[in-house]
């Protein structure tokens, strides 16, 4: 056995964690090597001190305080699934409602546009049948009246109106 191996295993050996054959090898090496004997002694002291270290113990059961904190702060893991599910349902519902609205709007113009065009055609038809005659007659009468007035103005005032 080499010193390096001894140093790696010395803690396990002193703690009784080695198998009997391994422990026997350690004993032999310790007897032959003064330096490793010192290492083993030091390890024995260390483990004795460690064993004498005070063991701290809890003075109370932590569950009551933990239960309060869970109530106050921590979300329950299982409830995380529900918000996701409810969010999905909500999103689906909103999407469905929007879809219906869009479909309704998309379908409605086809009918109403046709009706609007038919109405417009009817109005145009009425206008071309009735109004042109009335309009033309009224216009001719108004124009004749205007011409009459102009003639009278020229005769009375000798004014052609071109200077204005």
């Amino acid at each position, binding site marked *: 056995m080499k010193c390096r191996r001894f140093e790696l295993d010395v*803690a396990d050996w002193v703690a009784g964690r080695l198998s009997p054959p391994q422990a026997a090898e350690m004993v032999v090496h310790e007897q032959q090597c003064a330096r490793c004997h010192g290492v083993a002694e*030091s390890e024995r002291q260390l483990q004795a001190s460690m064993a004498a270290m005070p063991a*701290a113990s*809890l003075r109370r059961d*932590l569950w009551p305080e*933990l*239960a309060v904190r869970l109530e106050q702060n921590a*979300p329950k*893991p299982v*409830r995380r699934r529900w918000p996701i599910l409810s969010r999905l349902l909500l999103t689906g519902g909103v999407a469905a409602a929007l879809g219906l609205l869009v479909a309704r709007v998309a379908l409605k113009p086809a009918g109403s546009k046709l009706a609007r065009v038919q109405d417009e055609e009817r109005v145009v038809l009425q206008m071309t049948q009735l109004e042109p005659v009335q309009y033309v007659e009224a216009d001719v009468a108004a124009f004749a009246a205007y011409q009459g007035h102009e003639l009278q103005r020229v005769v009375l005032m000798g004014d052609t109106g071109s200077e204005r």
Partner: protein
Amino acid sequence: MERPREASRTEVANASDEELLRLCGEGDRRGLEELVRRYQSQLFSFLYRLTGSYEDAEEATLEVFLRAWRTASGFQYRARVATWLYRIAVNIARDLYSRKKARPQEPWPEDEDVAASLAVGSAEEEALDALTRDETRRQLVAALDKLSASDRELLVMYYLQQMDYDEITEVTGLSYTVLKTRLARARQRLRRHIERAQAGTER
């Protein structure tokens, strides 16, 4: 209505750690309550060794269970539940250590006992023995405090929690060979600190 409730409580008490963690993942607090009952003492003891403070250790222990509760549904069941709890504890202790840096110096429980025994006037020889033991312990605690967080974790797990290599490798994620080497080095550094303290060269 009462009978099934009592029966399930018995089941919870007899359930394995893994079954308890599954209950936690399903939001059943009885799972966590039983885990707390099983592990609070040893986790507190472990964290007390790492933090050196009763209050810090208690708070850290509460935090271990809170984190376990929050992340229970994501546990993969590849490691043992106990190991997983220790891993959480190590992470919390590291966070605490990096936040505080300067570690608190509390009197250790037995230090108080020694002071009390001296105060009541026990035999001189016993008092001297107690003082020597107390001094050795102080040196050890001071030496542990001077180590890095990772060195201290390894030594506490090995010597004070008496965990075997398999458990420590599971908690730390180190391979067996690396763990043995690091433990040997941590031990050397600890001894060096103790020797310096004994020689009175350490401030």
